[in-house]
């Protein structure tokens, strides 16, 4: 316990009090202070308050009253006699008196400084070793540090030994180049990075003076950081202060709020400054603040709920058809967002048909659906759609974007067979874990087992690593190839140990020879093959990115618990025997294990994004702590459900489409108009290029013929993007020269609008004598019936009164033929957003 001694004299008291406080603060390094403001009657204070000036002088810097009443772990109280200088914190959020001390160890005397414990954090937090400055590959102006300090030995040498050691001057520490440049006393391209009056300056100086110790005795290593609070609701314009604590291997903790860097992923919603003070914007929303200390990261999820109170009955009244509804309503309730109404039958049928099979319902199907009064008709429609043959091509085409390479690079036959393998997996409804396992462990000839084309395209272990980890684990490892990942915990060791799983892919046959590359190549498990760390040259054995924890599923089912124990043992065993058998088998076992959280999460996120217009995590294959899900429990529950259904993708689709959340209307209400990530309504998305082209062909009754396809094929059956189609290219098909994985862009462009209006082939389809439009015009239907049929064809719904009136007027125009009227109306509807978008 420390106590401040009060001085008899006012001013002296103030100064000596502050001096003692500073001394105490610096020596004990207790930057988090729970300050009890006490009136010291003797000094005539009658009010609570601490002067802002005093704060500045002491440079304590981290104050703010946490809304959640952060009072845990108060161990040290410090009484301050505060002498106002006229300024007064009267109220509110950023009032005086601040955080709690947490575990600062009282010990007499100066605490010894270590390079990793004390110096590197300063360099990191002040940005010295960041990407634009000394942390880049060649350093800056001859001074190089490792990016964000991931290589402490290197940094220590850079500071103390390189440049003949002239960066530091132990005999006269203030004259060290390190300090001179940092405070801009010497010309420094980076400007002033450290305030000469700050504790950081003192620390650096003390370290130099102490003779540049590398380590202290029994130096603990920092294991993790935590941030307080980790979840927070703020009112608009409200502020709050974060406190970051580092936890060490010897059980100690230290406040590192000043030495952390802060970043908000939505600074327009919640902004954060360099000292960790958050400020909410006037508009409701959500953001995640990342606090990084050295290479460790902690996040705080902040939400600004909508103002106003929504009665709880609003939510308890909502239907709950499965766990998805429960979890989404819960999130909406916490934000005060009210979901939209359920969607009507016609729009539901169109939506679910386009989502599940990429095809519009026929007018007959729509009529039958609308006329049915069976309460289970929606569920039955879902089941029917999942059994349609179009299902396989629709979903295989999406995976083809991610996997299928350029035939000029790997050969036409290899691409044809790869495409067939992907489609065949969906035709047979192969369980997803088996799909991934077969792909990752594929062996054989490119002409017989298309899956090996992955290895023909990506020939080196590091190339395979990035695509496998991104697509099937949602972990983007590219950064870790050269240095430590800036936003995640992966380093080069992790990257190359993972790459080592692919070190023993042997091949025989003919390699690549673009642009024909027509030879046959076979892939098998070779007996030898290693991956070396690029810097140290050390041979790295295959090692998974993280061990599988024997965690029970979030749903808490007993079966998962026992299963994971067995699988953990198995997974460990397989990892160890990786070198004996095929290391890829061990990798596949680790990846597809039920205890691997990423595997199921990334695929359910991808499928959810496809159906709902936005993933729970965006981008869909970027799962990391610093990119948190908009609804964590939902993501985990979807993943658990997927595992429980043995990775059956059709079951996953059934679960999602049956939920009430999926079946919400896209019409907004005033309480959800600004929501773009919590699924309070259905988000409209522009249809995929292939779906649109096929829909055009279905509506007009004139099928397409593509080069290199049997005639009258559908666009989503195309086996390579090299098959020409202006329509598909206009609507966002990936460029054939782009390497997979390719993600589609659902933007609308002017070119697309113009193409729909003017393309001769599309026009031909509408006016064709063999087409549906001509048949309609030639039939015995009345104009009103034709109008109804057209709306059913294009929009898959019946026209309302106004629309019928418009149609009537079209047919009643002067000098118009029946055929012409039909064509005009069809053409007009095809050029509206309701056709192009999924509602």
């Amino acid at each position, binding site marked *: 316990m420390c106590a401040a001694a009060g001085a008899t004299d006012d001013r002296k008291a103030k100064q000596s009090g502050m001096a003692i406080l500073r001394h105490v603060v610096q020596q004990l390094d207790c930057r988090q202070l729970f300050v009890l403001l006490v009136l010291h009657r003797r000094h005539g204070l009658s009010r609570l308050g601490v002067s802002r000036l005093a704060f500045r002088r002491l440079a304590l810097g981290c104050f703010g009253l946490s809304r959640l009443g952060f009072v845990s772990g108060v161990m040290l109280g410090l009484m301050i006699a505060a002498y106002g200088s006229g300024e007064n914190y009267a109220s509110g959020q950023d009032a005086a008196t601040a955080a709690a001390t947490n575990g600062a160890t009282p010990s007499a005397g100066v605490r010894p400084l270590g390079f990793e414990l004390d110096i590197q954090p300063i360099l990191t937090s002040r940005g010295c070793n960041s990407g634009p400055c000394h942390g880049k590959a060649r350093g800056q102006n001859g001074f190089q540090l490792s990016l964000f300090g991931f290589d402490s030995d290197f940094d220590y040498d850079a500071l103390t030994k390189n440049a003949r050691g002239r960066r530091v001057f132990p005999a006269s520490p203030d004259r060290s180049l390190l300090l001179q440049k940092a405070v801009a006393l010497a010309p420094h391209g980076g400007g002033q990075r450290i305030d000469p009056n700050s504790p950081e300056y003192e620390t650096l100086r003390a370290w130099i003076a102490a003779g540049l110790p590398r380590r202290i005795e029994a130096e603990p290593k920092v294991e993790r950081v935590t941030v307080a609070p980790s979840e927070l609701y703020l009112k608009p314009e409200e502020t709050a202060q974060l406190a970051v604590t580092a936890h060490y291997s010897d059980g100690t903790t230290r406040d590192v709020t000043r030495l952390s860097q802060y970043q908000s992923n939505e600074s327009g919603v919640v902004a954060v400054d360099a000292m960790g003070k958050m400020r909410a914007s006037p508009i409701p929303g959500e953001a995640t603040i990342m606090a990084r200390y050295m290479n460790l990261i902690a996040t705080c999820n902040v939400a600004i709920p909508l103002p106003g109170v929504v009665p709880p009955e609003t939510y308890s009244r909502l239907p709950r058809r499965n766990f998805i509804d429960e979890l989404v309503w819960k999130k909406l309730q916490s934000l005060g967002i009210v979901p939209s109404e359920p969607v009507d039958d016609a729009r539901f049928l169109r939506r679910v048909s386009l989502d599940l099979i990429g095809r519009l319902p026929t007018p007959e199907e729509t009529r039958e659906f609308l006329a049915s009064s069976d309460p289970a008709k929606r569920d039955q429609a879902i089941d029917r759609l999942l059994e349609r*043959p179009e299902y396989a091509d629709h979903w295989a085409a999406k995976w083809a974007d991610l996997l299928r390479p350029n035939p000029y690079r790997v050969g036409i036959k290899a691409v044809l067979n790869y495409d*067939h393998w992907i489609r*065949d997996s969906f*035709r047979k409804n192969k369980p997803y874990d088996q799909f991934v396992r077969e792909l990752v462990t594929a*062996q054989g000839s490119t*002409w017989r087992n298309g899956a090996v084309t992955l290895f023909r395209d990506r020939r080196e272990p590091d190339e395979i690593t990035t695509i496998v980890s991104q697509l099937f684990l949602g972990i983007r490892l590219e950064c870790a190839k050269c240095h430590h990942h800036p936003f995640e915990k992966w380093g080069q060791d992790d990257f190359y140990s993972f790459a080592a799983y692919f070190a023993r892919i042997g091949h025989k046959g003919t390699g690549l020879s673009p642009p*024909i*590359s027509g030879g046959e190549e076979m892939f098998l498990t070779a007996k030898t093959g290693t991956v070396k760390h690029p810097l140290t040259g050390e041979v790295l054995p295959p090692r998974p990115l993280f061990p599988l924890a024997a965690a029970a599923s979030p749903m808490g089912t007993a079966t998962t618990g026992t299963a994971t124990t067995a699988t953990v043992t198995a997974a460990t065993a397989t990892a160890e025997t990786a070198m004996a058998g095929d290391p890829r088998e061990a990798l596949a076992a680790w990846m597809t294990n039920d205890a691997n959280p990423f595997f199921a999460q990334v695929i359910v996120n991808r499928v959810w994004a496809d159906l709902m217009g936005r993933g729970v995590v965006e981008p869909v294959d970027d799962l990391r702590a610093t990119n948190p899900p908009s609804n964590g429990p939902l993501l985990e529950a979807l993943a658990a459900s997927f595992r429980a259904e043995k990775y059956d993708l059709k079951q996953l689709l059934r679960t999602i489409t049956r939920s009430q959340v999926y079946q919400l209307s896209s019409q907004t209400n005033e309480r959800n108009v600004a929501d773009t990530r919590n699924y309070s309504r259905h988000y409209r998305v522009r249809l995929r290029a292939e779906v649109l082209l096929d829909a055009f062909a279905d509506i007009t009754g004139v099928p397409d013929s593509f080069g290199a396809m*049997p005639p*009258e094929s559908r666009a989503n059956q195309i086996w390579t993007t090299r098959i020409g189609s202006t329509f598909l290219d206009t609507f966002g098909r990936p460029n054939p020269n782009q390497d997979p994985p390719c993600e589609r862009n659902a933007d609308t462009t002017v070119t697309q609008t113009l193409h729909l209006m003017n393309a001769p082939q599309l026009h031909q389809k509408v006016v064709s004598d063999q087409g549906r439009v001509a048949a309609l015009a030639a039939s015995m239907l009345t104009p009103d019936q034709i109008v109804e049929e057209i709306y059913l064809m294009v929009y898959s719904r019946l026209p309302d009164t106004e629309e019928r009136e418009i149609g009537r007027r079209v047919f009643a125009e002067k000098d118009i033929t029946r055929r012409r009227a039909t064509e005009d109306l069809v053409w007009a509807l095809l050029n509206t957003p309701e056709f192009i978008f999924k509602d």
Partner: protein
Amino acid sequence: MASFVTNVPRPTVLDRPPPSASTSAWSTTSTMASFVPLSLALRIGRRAVLAIVAVLSLALAAEAAPPKLTAVFPTGVERGRTASMVAAGEFGKWPVQWRTDRPGLEVVSLADKGKVELRAAADAVPGWYWVRAIDAEGVTAARPVFVGTTRELEEAEPNDVVDKAQAMELPAAVSGKVAKSGDVDGYLVLLKAGEWLHAAVEANQPLGAPMDAVLQIAEVVGGLPGSTPFPRRAEAFVLEQRDDETGLDPRISFRAPRDGRYLVRVFAFPSEPNSTVGFAGADTYAYRLTLATAAFVDFVLPLARPVGGPEGPWTAESGAGDNTGTPAASASRPAQISPALAEDDGWPAEDRQVSWTFDPATPGAAPIPWTNHTSVLAIAAALSAEGQKVALPATISGRLLSAGSVATFRFDATKGQRWRFKVDARTLGFPLDACVELRDATGAVIAENDDANNQRDPLLAWTAPADGEFRVSVRDTYRHGGPRYAFRLTAEAIAADYGLGVANESFIVVAGKTVEIPVTIDRREGFAEEIEIQASGLPEGVTVAAVKSENKGDAAKAVKLTISATAAAKPDSVRIRVTGMSTGPLAKRHRAVPATAAPAAGSGGGSIGYAPRELWLTITAP
């Protein structure tokens, strides 16, 4: 037209040169010119006559070269029936004579050039027959025609769109052509739920079409008149697809999931890859598609016919089954075999013609070669860790039915014994990419081979290090497996022997002259004996001078056999035999095999790609 004769001194129409033995264009022209009557010549004018002469002389000049046969289309005839076909090639004087490699099929020229009639005997052994055309100038290469037990149909274009697909009654064999770029051929069949459909394309082998066919089986939906005013048009959704199965040719065994209409589609890429994604097609892209339900003779087990007997039994397999390695119930049938040819009697297996196995009630036929050793069929024990006990030398046939299967055979060897283990799988057209491993009694691998001679099939030569029991195992390099993963493992003692080879299969000798036949001798394992090389089957007036090949100098590897024809020898084409007999204690005799008879890499299965082992000699008029 006048340009054709610029290099030739213009004959005077009325010239009648004396008869000469030379066959130069000049003299031919003159000879032809002599056939143009003077009256005609004067009437139509000199230029015109020269033009006529030029054309005729060209025709005659062409006649001087041996004929060429490139293809016979359609590709097959049902036994007991007659079919008319088109023979593509270059024929001088029509009609030409025809020969087949074995009895059962007769080919007769029809009046129109290039049109022939094939007559298959009712009891003809099914399989591929090789036909050649013969005329006074020579003999063509042999081209294959199938004689089958099922009806033969021809493709009817247009059949590329789903609702124009050609309806088929099964079983049937269709001869079709992917005639131009982008051509797709569709055939419609009706199947019941659970029914098997076997579709086999034979194009690249043995027909030699320069195409890489792709086969699809699709379900047809829609296209039926319905109650709605705008019925849905027919669409096909692919359920199965195969690019390569036997070499470049695909085969599929498909089980219908429900009653319905199914479309069998064929399209192709060029066998020589290029950078065009579009489908290819040409007049040479001819294929044979066999469609059968129930069963199909895809291949036969065991894959060898022992020279010393016994004759069988052989089981014809359909190659159908599921992923777990369970063959279809209807997949196997007992098979009959073609009778041994008298001419093969007494010759070692490698010099004999291939035999054909078949089942009269089932479409298809499968070839099997002869073997000098015992034929052993792998039993279930072979797939266990323990393995199957065999006595060497032997030819062992088996299948790796499921993924990861390994076939192991135990045998006894004495120290110093030298064995050769050869696995034939890809060369027989099976998808198995074999690797062979030799293990000692402890289970440690002491020798292995994956690919030999730039082929996918392994070959391992081994000397037993000690007395004892050893194991030889065959597995797929990639640990795949299935009903068509068949192999033939020949384990024989490494012994000195030789083979005789001839580059061409046909030779021409002019009456009164000689011709040299270069014969190569492949002496293996230091075969040191002297070999006497002879030719037999020569007609009257044609003689041969026997040649000795001694084990030193150039003659060890190549000799020239000289065949002389007297001036009185009748112009004819006959089959001859070039044989060798070693004069030492080993006394090995062999027949020369033409290079064209060697199996093409990757060919086999239902259609072995090699031509028959025949040598032809044509005696032409002087």
